[in-house]
């Protein structure tokens, strides 16, 4: 498996650390349901998903990868810092 880091180009998956679904952190007072959803509940799609990876032994960038969980195709990868803005 190879991931196209926006900074380093295509790299082996072994350089990356996986975190999971790319979600927005709720406000501290968003309530129990919002926090439960952020931390625990997952769409867990069989298909396209947006998820966070960390180019740990590469450039150190957190990236948002668009990936298909059925085929492992990865049509997109952007810097998390830019995606978050």
């Amino acid at each position: 498996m190879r991931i196209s880091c926006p900074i380093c180009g295509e790299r082996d998956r072994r350089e990356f650390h996986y975190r999971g679904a790319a979600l927005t952190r709720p406000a501290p007072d968003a309530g129990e349901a919002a926090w439960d959803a952020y931390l625990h509940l997952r769409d867990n799609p069989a298909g396209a998903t947006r998820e966070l990876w960390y180019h740990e032994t590469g450039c150190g960038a957190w990236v948002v990868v668009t990936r298909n969980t059925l085929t492992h195709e990865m049509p997109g990868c952007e810097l998390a810092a830019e995606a978050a803005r």
Partner: protein
Amino acid sequence: MAELIARTPCAGLLPLAVGGVDLTEESLGALTTLSPRRGQEAALSEALEAAHGMAFPAPNRTTGKAGARAIWFGRGQALLAGPEPDADLARLAALSDQSDAWAVVRLRGAGAVDVLARLVPLDLRAAAFRRGHTARSELAQMMASITRLGADDFQIMVFRSMAATLVGELKTAMEAVAARG
């Protein structure tokens, strides 16, 4: 009066020559990571040019030359290798002294690419990874900075504490490449 004695990371481990490949320890001088402050990327590059004669490197590239080189070192970061950083740079970037943090070795000779191909998951083909190119990657599970200095000439950096593992892994690969003839 007593004096503290400096010891290099690979002291007692190198040099090493196997087959046509040499492995030596490099002393690059001062090593300083430069992390530009927000919005100061261009100014930092200019200041770096003015003070040390090289621009801030683009991702996966180096600037400068032997003795004074800026090596791209990860997202938003370069490693100034050689001179002590000009004090002016601190206005534009966070500076961290890393002069003692890295074991730096040089792998040279026909077969150097084959040796690295046993340890590093990088595309090292000449067209993809040219002289002056650099990469942050891993070498046998160790975070590494790898720079191509010539056709069969690479600079490899890993954390100082792993110097012995680095040399051990390279030596094994050098022997295996040499044994194939």
